[in-house]
Structure formats: C-alpha cells, structure tokens
C-alpha cells in the first residue's frame, strides 16, 4: 500500500567506486593476533588451549558452549601467550585469546572435507556446526541453526546485496570465488530442502550478474535475482519482502524462506572442499579518512591499526574509525580492535561537524523506516518518557539500520533517540 505507507527504503550513494576495482591486497598478521572470545552477544566461550601451547592455522582454540555451538580457530601458527581484554568491534571490551605469530602459517585441517553430494542432510548440518560457519553479514549468528529443522522451506535466498555504503568486500569475494559460491549454495540448498535458490544481487552490478548467470548455466535450481539499489536491501526482512512480497513476524522460515550471506556460502564451500574454517577474511577498508582505500585479505584477529598502516595511514588528524559500514557500524574510539570472522569492513571518515536544526516534522524518517516504525514519534515519546506509547510504537522492532538519521533533513540523531527508547523499554521490562 504505497499510499498508506512510505517506500520503507531509500537509494543512497554507495561510494563503492573507491574500492570496486582495486586489487585485493594480502596483509600478513603482525607479531600477535587476537581471537575475540565472543559470539553473538555471548561471552560464554570455553578456551581449549592453554598458555604456551603451539597452534597452527586451523587449530581449534575455543568453543561457544551454551545453547549454541560455535568453534573458533587460530588464524596463524605460533604460540598461545594468554588472554587480554580489548575493545571489540561491537564497542564493548571483551576478552581476546592472544597468539604469537611465528610467520610460518603452517596449516592443519580442522576437520575432514566431505562431498556434499554423498553426505546426508544431517551430516551436512553437523559439518556446518563444527566448521564454525557463522553469518558473514555482520551478525555472526551460527548458520547451522537455520537448517536444523527446515519445515516447509521452498526458497533459499543467498544474500549478495551488500547495501552498506563503501563496502565492496562481498562483491570482490564473489567475483573471485564464483565456483565456491555455487558449491556452497548447492550444499545449503540440500540442507534446506528447498526447491530453488535465489542469489540476490543489486541490479547495478551488471558485469557480475552476467558472469554469475554464465557460471550458473548448468544449475537451473539456482537463479540470480536482481534487486534495486536501495538501502537496506540486504536486511533479511526487506530482501524477503522484495523477493516474495511476504512479511514475517520473527523468522523468514514462517514464509518458507531461509537466508544466508553469499560470503557465508563461500566460506562453507571452502570448509567442504579443504577442511579449512574461516580464518582469513576479505574486508573493505574505505572512506575519505584512509590514504589508499582497498579490499584486503587478512587473517582473523589482526588489529585495524596494522591494516591502516599498510594502506598508507590516515588522511586527517581527526577521524572516525567505524567497525563496519557508516550506516550500522559502530564508531570505535581507537584503532586497536581486530578483524572478526563476521565483520566485513572498516570505514574511516574525516571528522565533520554536523549542524542540526529543529525537527520540521517532515516525516521522512517514518516514510523510509524499513521496519515500518515511526521514528519521529518514538523520539518524541522517548523525550516525554512515555513508555506506553513506546510500546504501541513497537520501538523494539528497530534494527538500528540508521536510515532515519540518514534521511533527516534537520540532521538530527533520530536513530540514537530510538536506541534510547529501546534501552528505556528494556530497563522497564527488567523491573
């Protein structure tokens, strides 16, 4: 109903040209790597090695052990030197496992590779769990859960949208590993019991679409789905609605869909083929605050400062270092946070003053909110401490995509107001 509700999305300037065609630069780890002992919001991680242990690339070093199982692996070969609390990309200090890098990158298979065609569905799900495959779109949610009980799933959506500005890591990774993307997708298709898979790509990536279609010639069950260049097209709900015209309450399985990120599929394929977990990431370092914006291939656990140094350093004395893209990524007040398996970018921007004026009640935030919320109303209710209205306005449904602040012509921090509202509601719920 376009008349009752706004477009719930918006085209934004992607700034992708900064890194679109640059060569991927391989960056070695420095003297130490730091493996973050965290998954999702859980820090219930069991460390399986002790100080002084020798590890190789692919050695299992820790495991999330609560309701979900997520193994973690070493990204270098060397010696475990202990634990250290450091700032993490989610803007919270957490414990990291410190490994001293011997620079040899000796590799050991973390698990035996398997042929997805021969393996049963259940074997594949277990394999995925033990390979530590997590969602590479930013959330780090363990992927195997989605395939545990796939009832009524008819479509697998592989999310190659990459709607955050500046980030081109997925795009470059897909270009390089098209065969792995198809292999991973086929394995996931088998695990999901779905009939078909859709690889969702922004329609402006013409060349990649042509290449992918050629590569998919022999696989009629996998199709390329072109989606418009709008934000947040890569959000699961926006994407599922775009492709199925259906909305769901909690999980996409309600409408017969399961989603995974394209780089997750690639990582899964590498695990299947080589018995190698996700220990090295391609990430985008971009923005006007870095001298040479680029996509880099870097082991998990390397500090951002080391990468920045290799790319020529900062361009200004005052910068914003953002873990992720500029829309959803959090600003970290230092550059010593490390590369994670689920992160895909660091955006570095020159600090610029934002001059805000009074809200003119234009309602742009309400029209573009992809969750269908009313951000300006939430902000007003939050200021008035009006919990009842906040509940009615469903502030809890906000994913903090940042679009309300982005569109605000008065340059107000609308998203932050909604965040405060969410915290207010959480505090109230705890009482």
């Amino acid at each position, binding site marked *: *109903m376009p*008349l*009752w*509700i*706004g477009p*719930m999305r918006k085209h*934004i300037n992607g700034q992708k040209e900064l890194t679109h065609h640059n060569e991927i630069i391989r960056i070695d780890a420095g003297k130490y790597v730091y493996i973050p002992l965290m998954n999702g919001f859980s820090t219930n991680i069991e460390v399986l090695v002790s100080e002084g242990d020798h590890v190789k690339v692919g050695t299992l070093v820790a495991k999330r052990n609560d309701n979900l199982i997520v193994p973690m692996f070493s990204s270098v070969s060397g010696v475990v030197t202990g634990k250290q609390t450091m700032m993490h990309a989610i803007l919270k200090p957490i414990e990291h496992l410190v490994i001293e890098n011997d620079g040899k990158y000796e590799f050991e298979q973390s698990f035996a590779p398997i042929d997805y065609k021969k393996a049963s569905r259940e074997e594949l799900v277990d394999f995925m769990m033990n390979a530590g495959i997590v969602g590479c779109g930013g959330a780090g949610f363990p992927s195997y859960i989605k395939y545990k009980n796939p009832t009524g799933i008819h479509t697998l959506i592989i999310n190659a949208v990459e709607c955050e*500005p500046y980030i081109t890591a997925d795009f470059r990774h897909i270009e390089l590993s098209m065969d792995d993307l198809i292999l991973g997708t086929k394995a996931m298709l088998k695990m999901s019991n779905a009939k078909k898979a859709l690889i969702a790509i922004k329609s402006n990536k013409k060349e990649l679409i042509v290449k992918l279609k050629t590569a998919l010639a022999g696989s009629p069950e996998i199709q390329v789905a072109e989606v418009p260049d709008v934000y947040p097209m890569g959000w699961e709900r926006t994407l599922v609605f775009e492709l199925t015209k259906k*909305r769901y309450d909690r999980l996409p399985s309600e409408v017969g869909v399961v989603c995974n990120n394209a780089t997750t599929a690639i990582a899964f394929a590498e695990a299947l083929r080589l018995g190698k977990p996700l220990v090295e990431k391609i990430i985008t370092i971009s923005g006007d605050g870095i001298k040479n914006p680029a996509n880099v291939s870097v082991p998990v656990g390397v500090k951002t400062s080391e990468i920045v140094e290799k790319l020529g350093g*900062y361009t200004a*004395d*005052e*910068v*914003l270092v*953002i873990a992720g*893209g*500029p*829309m*959803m*990524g*959090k*600003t970290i*007040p*230092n*550059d010593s946070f490390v590369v994670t398996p689920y992160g895909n970018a660091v955006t570095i*921007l020159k*600090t610029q003053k*934002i001059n805000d*004026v*009074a*809200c*003119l*009640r*234009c*309602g742009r935030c*309400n*029209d573009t909110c992809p*969750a*269908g*919320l*009313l951000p*300006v*109303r939430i902000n007003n209710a939050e200021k008035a401490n009006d919990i009842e*209205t906040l509940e*009615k*306005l*469903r502030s809890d449904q906000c994913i*903090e995509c*940042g*679009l309300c*602040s*982005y*569109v*605000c*012509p*008065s*340059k107000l921090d609308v*998203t*932050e107001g909604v*965040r405060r509202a969410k915290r207010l509601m959480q505090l109230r719920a705890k009482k």
Partner: protein
Amino acid sequence: MKFTFRVSPNYRDSISTGRIMRELTIGLLVIYAFALYYYFTSYGTSYGIHALLLMVTSLSVAFATEIAWALFLKKDLRSFLKGSYPWVTAIILTLMVPITMTYYALGIGTLFALLFGKLLFGGFGQNIFNPAAVGRAIILASFAGAAAADITTSATPTTAMEQVGWMITKPELATKFLAQFGGLGNLLVGFYPGSLGETSKILILVVGVVLALRHVLDWKVPAIYIGSVFVFASMIAVIKGMGAWYPIFHLATGGLMFGAFFMATDPVTNPTSASGRVIFALGCAILTVLIRVKANLPEGVLYAILIMNMLTPMIERLTEGWQIKLAKKYTIAFVSLFLVGSLSIGATTFAMSYKAPAEEAKPTVTLGVPVLIFGDDTALSPAEVTSSVAEGDVVTITVSSKGYAMLESEYDENPKPNILIVKIDTVKKTIVSVAFSEFHDTKNIGDKTNSTTYLDQFTGLSITDPTASVDTVTGATFSSVSVARAVRAAIDSVVGK
C-alpha cells in the same frame, strides 16, 4: 591522532532543511514573478510597483518581527533567523492577497502570522497552524475593507460563483458565466486579477510537480487533496446535472492549487506519517468543497487547511503504531472519511440551488424643495457651455456644471464637473430634454438626479418664463441645483443674457 566518537549512522543524505526551504522559496518566487509580469504588463507600472512593495512590506515586517523576538529572547540573531525561515511565511502570505491589499493590512497580517502563528508556539517546528494561513485569516477577518475599490472590484471567479450558489445548470448560462473570466482556459492560465500568486493554476502545478520530484514536498498531499476535490465536485455535477466544466472550475479557481501545493504540504503542521498525511489531505478536500458550496464564504481552502491543522494531533494518534500492521486500520479510516465526506456533500446538494444574480436596485427618487431655474441658487458658480450645435429648430448644448463633488465634498481627490446635454427648441422656446453625458458626483446620492423622475421635469419648460422651476431630489439638493444651473447656462447661451 584523534579518534572521534559519534553515534551511528555516520553517513547523511545531502538534503537539508535549509535546502528544502531554499528550493521552496525559489518555487514561490517563480510564481511571484508571473504575478509581477501580469500586473506590470496588464495594469501598468503603478500596479506592478504596488505588487513589488507588498512583498517588500511583508518581508520587512517578517524580518523585523523575528529579529525583535530573537533580541527579546537574547538568542544569536544569525542562527535564529537561519533556522526560522520567516521569509517563506511572508512570501506565501503575500501571494495569497489581492493586488488591492493595503500595505498596512498586509503588514499587520504578517506580524500576526509570525508572532501568533509561529513564535509564541515555540518557533519553527512547534506551531500548530500554518503561519501564512493564520495571517491571511487575520486579514480576512479584520481588514475586510482593506482592499481599496479598484480594478479588482469586479468579482473574482469564486465570489461570482458564490453569488450564484455554486451552481449553474443551464449550459448557456454556464458558458456566459465562464466567458466573463475569459473561459476555463484563461482561469487555468491565470491572466485575471485575483490573489497575487493563486491565479495561474498551470504554473503552480508545474512548480509543485518539480518540487515534489525534488522531494521538497510530499506529492501525496496535493494529489489526494486536488484529486478528492475533483471527485466530490464531479459528484455534485452528476447529481445536479452539470457538465464537466464544473469540477474543472473547482480546480481552476480560488486557492485550491496554491493551498494544496504550498500550504497543506507544510510539514510542520500536517501529520508525520504517510497515512496521516493522506487522511489530512482528504479532510482538507471535504471541508473545502463543503465551505465553498454551503458556507457564506466564497472560498474554503484557507479555513479547510486551518481546521485540518487543528486536527493534526488527532490524526497522529489515529495512525500511531507499527505501520506495516496497520494497513487495514488506515484503509478503514480513509474509506470511512471518504464516505462521510461523500454523504455530507451529497446531502448539501439538496439544499443547493441556482441564485439568479440580483438586478442592480435603482435608487428611489423622491422630489422635495423646488428650485427656480433663474433664481439666486443657480446664479452662483455658473455652469460653462462647452459646445453648441444647432440642427433645425433644436440646439444641442453641452454644459459643464460643477456638482456637489467640486463645490462641497472632500471625498474625491480629483473632483470633476458633471457634463450635461441640454436640447432647446429655439422656435417654441421650450426645453426638449436634459441628460447627463458624464456623471461624476457622489455615488448612491448625487446619482439620484440622473433619473427620469428628476430630469423629465425640464421637458416642455418655457425658456422665457422667469418663474420656471423644478423640484429638487431629496437628499441630493446640490446635484439637483447643478443640473438647474446647467440648464440656465444653456438657456442663456441661446437667448443671450
């Protein structure tokens, strides 16, 4: 090295409130430029300059008011004005007033618009009513006579339509009615006197569409507003058996186009949600049509928008919640409102009827005190004979005679004498007829002498009878005497003193 911390997102759209207001200002100035062109070319420099000075007046008062307010509150002047946009209100208000508006009334209107319409509510973003609409309402209510009698004293299309009850069923009458404004086409193009910026519907549409495409205003509001007025007017046309010209007339006259594009879209005073704005626009449409066809006002746009401004908080409450879950509620609200509107407008059509324009009432003339044609009264300020033409026995004499306006009154800055034509039969020595060729005396009083009741008394009077007299018109003695004076002068010119 300094790492700044800032909450996400750290990426902003290039559109800003400043840019929105700038583009809106440019759009409004384009419309104003058309008005200036029209008045300069069609009515001459003095009208053009008046249109210019009206804008200057409103802008000056607007800035003076805001500056005084900023100083009063001890705020930084520059940043206050930059975030308050007083000129937008001033421009919109000026575009809503007719060319005959006095500077004084517009100035007071502007002051009220900004002070009571905006600043007292807490400034930009806090006001409930559209400030320009408040200013216009103040002018309408307090300065009804502020429009000096002038070129535009001829009725505007909406006033003329109001006089016939917003209804003309006979096609030939409709054609005749529209012809006085140059037809529907000219109403759309806008070459007729009216509110400065409201006449050219086509230009407003073009500017409005460009601004909507540039996301300066939300297209939904004018689309629903104008579209619904068209639907409701068509409904009346069908019920009453009027042609397609009728709904088009509704669109082509008054402030509908201007109001729908530039006032109903004011984000500060309309709802913040898409559904709310749609309901708001529909409400405006219903009220506009109802006020037009039924209330004692020629135009409904202004009050419709003000009333809906007042209902905005209610609409906000109605549409509050999780939008994607409320589509059904929104649909019900919109459809119910549409039905209520249709029913009330449908019901009013029963009370609508064509009112034939009243014939201008003739002043009743009663005769009183007599005046001697050759008496003392006519001896003073004698009339002048300007020409004399003999044709057989009858001489036609043109006489210029000073009337009340020239002798006594201060009502006119440039009083002119009345010009009379007196015909005398030189053989029969009688007066054949007396008539005015130009009448310049007081309206509604002196013009009573310009009636056959008075003038026929002269016919047949002997020009040689020193006691010849006529009875003067009661209440118009001066004018009556001036006629007698003219007759005396005419007789004198024929017989010689």
